[in-house]
């Protein structure tokens, strides 16, 4: 890796300002445990409760939004605590600093995942320290297992040791002579045993051991093996409680209508027609929109429809053409930042070969979680309680404290299951809106549920992006290559939404994630990011920068392979030959897909296979997609996916996450797009912003590998390669190169 611009990066600079002044001392001091023991109960670390009736409760510090963390995190604790995973209880943690996520910020360090140099490791370590200072309790960046792996196993092991020592005291024997089994401490010599429940209250008084030995992998009982999901039965019986299912005594129901020209004011509103409807309690003017409070959700929604407000103009261009003209302008002449500037540029190397150029484009996208945004809020004086599914409870606390000028201790967040997150529930807007509406209910709780249209038109979108790619192909293959990618900064937009937070200076590497950080060993490689100044709210959409840049680079690699008459899979193998995990996943999909066997076109016009690779969130993923060109359009027949996650904690869940990432990515690739007209998103529901349906879903085969020396994430890495692999397969089948997402702009899908 050559010169990289390492001045201020967004995560680092923001964190340094807030953190390092406090000094290293703070880092060594643990945050207080927010859990209080009830009578007869022992609390061990912020993660474990054990009651005298032998109920073992795991306090889960991360959101459960389908990515399986409820089960995998509980398995980490159970592994070392030595209890039966199938019988443990779980609860979602309160918002507290003790549950901070350090791995998420480590991913923000400006070093690619394959860079194991001293500088890179030190920077990652520093970002972890910074995360503790910021104490963000957040679920994102595919970081949950990486963050929790040591922390939760140590919590389990520490608690087990405390229980063993309590039993040793009880029996007057040496702790070393005791063993544990499934929630019991056993003295093999005396033939006695005590249950954890019987020991818990006393054991919890002991000091938490600071240094405990963890089981070697060979002794793992739960980790490394597929575990049945602890929440599966609740989710097939309707018992799992999502934010929208919260029910409280005297609860009111409300809905909101905010200016669909996001960020602009409401200039007039006549609430008369709504107030005239039976069952309507109140209409609240929120400045940029209004809420209707009623006795049930339907009445609130119907009454909200009856109001015809006047909306001010949008603070961004009114049409998609206008928006993309701004992106194009930035791409052409905006000031960029270099994230990779190795050796010669294509211009330097122009004389040594043939130049190829391409421009790629990606649209704005909504998250479209199945559960529309909602939260329930209640005020008691200046104390606020918010119930919702969320990815960042401490951010909700901080935002609420700032917005309502109350101490953070006065805000309680009760987290539920999430009906999808994908980055959307990282935001605090739906919680704050509910709290604002609850100001008008005389202390009664109120659930504020958005319509689908409200959800889709008030999203923090995946930013639209344009990228110019250029390469010089000569006798040595790729003589030089460059990418210039322009989009709005997600970090700047997200920071801008947090009260009292300064938008940090410096480049946002998310703009070029997926371009600069790929393990292609090319001596002459340039990546420039160009931030686009637009006021459309943009946010973290599954894989973030890795959701669009891999489409650009992996499509271009395919174009290079075609232009230089190379097999696209063999070319990638050659260019990443020094990276064993990359070679491993590429060889795996080559074998799984029968890459070298010719395809027939029985019953269809033609068939083709495409390949793509992406290293994201520490995981190395290759995919081969096979499509058929049929009379009804392109049919995606098969996806073969190989993912190297370093340490596979739950193979079945990893398979599910890869499938999920693929379906999410292919849904976007096939047809999703948020477009603007009159300053508003034109899409409001699944009739205009659809996703892949069962009948369109290919057969997906996943193989999990463990060649990488580091553990990687799983929630996002399945998405990035799926979009370019599909475009490359369409090229292979039809000869048509589609450089614009969604691909439906140029081809039809069956």
């Amino acid at each position, binding site marked *: 890796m050559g010169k990289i611009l390492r001045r201020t990066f967004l995560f680092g600079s923001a964190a340094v300002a807030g953190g390092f002044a406090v000094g290293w001392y703070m880092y060594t001091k643990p945050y207080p445990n927010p859990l209080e023991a009830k009578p007869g109960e022992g609390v061990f670390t912020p993660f474990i409760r054990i009651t005298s009736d032998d109920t073992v409760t795991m306090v889960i510090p991360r959101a*459960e*939004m*389908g*990515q*399986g963390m409820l089960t995998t995190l509980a398995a980490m604790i159970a592994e070392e605590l030595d209890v039966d995973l199938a019988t443990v209880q779980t609860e979602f943690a309160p918002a507290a600093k003790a549950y901070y996520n350090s791995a998420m910020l480590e991913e923000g360090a400006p070093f690619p995942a394959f860079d194991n140099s001293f500088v890179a490791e030190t920077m990652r370590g520093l970002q972890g320290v910074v995360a503790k200072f910021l104490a963000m309790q957040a679920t994102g960046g595919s970081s949950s297992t990486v963050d929790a792996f040591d922390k939760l196993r140590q919590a389990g092991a520490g608690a087990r040791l405390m229980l063993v020592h309590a039993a040793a005291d009880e029996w007057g024997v040496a702790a070393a002579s005791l063993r544990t089994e499934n929630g019991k401490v056993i003295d093999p010599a005396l033939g006695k045993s005590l249950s954890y429940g019987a020991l818990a209250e006393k054991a919890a008084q002991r000091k938490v051991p600071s240094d405990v030995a963890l089981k070697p992998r060979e002794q793992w009982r739960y980790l490394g093996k*597929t575990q*049945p*999901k602890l*929440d*599966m*039965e*609740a*989710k*097939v*019986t*309707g*018992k*799992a*409680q*999502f934010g*929208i*299912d919260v*029910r409280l005594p005297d609860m009111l*129901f409300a809905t909101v209508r905010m200016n669909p020209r996001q960020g602009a004011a409401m200039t007039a509103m006549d609430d008369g027609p709504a107030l005239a409807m039976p*069952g309507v309690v109140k209409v609240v003017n929120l400045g940029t929109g209004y809420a209707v409070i009623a006795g*049930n*959700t*339907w*009445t609130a*929604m119907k009454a909200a429809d009856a109001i015809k407000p006047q909306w001010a103009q949008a603070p961004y261009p009114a049409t998609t053409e206008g928006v993309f003209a701004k992106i194009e302008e930035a791409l052409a002449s905006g000031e960029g930042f270099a994230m990779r500037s190795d050796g010669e540029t294509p211009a330097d190397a122009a004389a040594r070969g043939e130049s190829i150029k391409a421009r790629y484009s990606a649209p704005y996208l909504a998250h*479209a*979680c*199945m*559960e*529309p945004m909602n939260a329930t809020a209640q005020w008691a004086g200046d104390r606020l309680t918010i119930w919702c599914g969320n990815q960042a409870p401490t951010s909700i606390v901080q935002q609420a404290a700032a917005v309502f000028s109350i101490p953070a201790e006065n805000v309680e967040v009760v987290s539920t*299951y*999430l*009906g*999808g997150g*994908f980055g959307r529930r990282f935001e605090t807007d739906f919680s704050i809106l509910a709290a604002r509406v609850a100001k008008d209910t005389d202390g009664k709780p109120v659930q504020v549920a958005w*319509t*689908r249209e409200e959800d889709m038109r008030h999203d923090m979108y995946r930013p639209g992006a344009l990228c110019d790619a250029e390469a010089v192909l000569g006798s040595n293959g790729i003589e030089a290559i460059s990418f210039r990618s322009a989009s709005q900064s997600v970090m700047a937009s997200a920071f801008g939404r947090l009260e009292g937070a300064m938008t940090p200076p410096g480049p946002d590497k998310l703009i070029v994630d997926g371009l600069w950080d790929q393990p292609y060993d090319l001596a002459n490689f340039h990546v420039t990011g160009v931030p686009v100044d637009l006021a459309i709210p943009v946010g973290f959409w599954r894989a973030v920068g890795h959701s669009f840049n891999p489409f650009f680079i992996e499509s271009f690699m395919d174009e290079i392979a075609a232009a230089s008459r190379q097999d696209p899979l063999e070319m990638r193998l050659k260019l990443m030959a020094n990276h064993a995990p990359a070679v491993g996943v590429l060889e795996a999909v080559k074998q799984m897909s029968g890459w070298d066997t010719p395809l027939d076109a029985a019953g269809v016009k033609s068939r083709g296979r495409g390949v793509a690779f992406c290293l994201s969130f520490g995981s190395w993923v290759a995919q081969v997609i096979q499509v058929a060109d049929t009379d009804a359009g392109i049919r995606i027949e098969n996806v073969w996916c190989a993912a190297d996650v370093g340490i596979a904690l739950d193979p*079945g869940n990893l398979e*599910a996450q890869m*499938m*999920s990432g693929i*379906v*999410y990515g292919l*849904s976007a690739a096939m047809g999703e797009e948020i477009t603007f007209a009159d300053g508003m998103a034109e899409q409001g*529901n*699944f*009739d205009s912003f*659809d*996703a*892949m*349906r*069962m*009948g369109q*879903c290919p057969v*997906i085969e996943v193989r999990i590998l463990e060649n990488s020396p580091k553990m990687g994430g799983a929630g996002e890495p399945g998405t990035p390669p799926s979009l370019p692999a599909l475009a490359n397969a369409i090229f292979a089948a039809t000869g048509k190169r589609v450089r614009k997402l969604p691909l439906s702009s140029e081809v039809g899908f069956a």
Partner: protein
Amino acid sequence: MDLKVNGKMISLEADPEMPLLWALRDVAGLTGTKFGCGIAQCGACTVLVDGAPVRSCVTPVGSVSGEITTIEGVAAGDGTLSVVQQAWVEAQVAQCGYCQSGQVLAATALLKANPAPTDSDIDEAMSGNLCRCGTYPRIRAAVRAASKKLAGT
């Protein structure tokens, strides 16, 4: 208004125009039926009326005369999961789980009407039920497994 829900008669105070979805969720307190789109595009609100799948978000409660089955009424009274629910657990289908009430009910209706569906029957019957987590491959496997199990009993 009187409705038969999950084998029991219940009396609701609701505007007959209110969609069945909201009558179940906000009036009857049965929150297992989910709101996804409000325009019969996603299937999250699917319930059965006399065994047939219905999009409760666009069905006025006053228009319903048959017996309603919601996700809360799929398992037996003693909590024993139905064959479809068991297949869902065995295939570890659910991720976020929000759409799964509708998926389970759509599959229940399919297998009642067509106990041995082909893959294309499954695709056709289930394509109205959106899943943003991408559980489709496991849903297919679960429906096939449930079909086999029903054939064997």
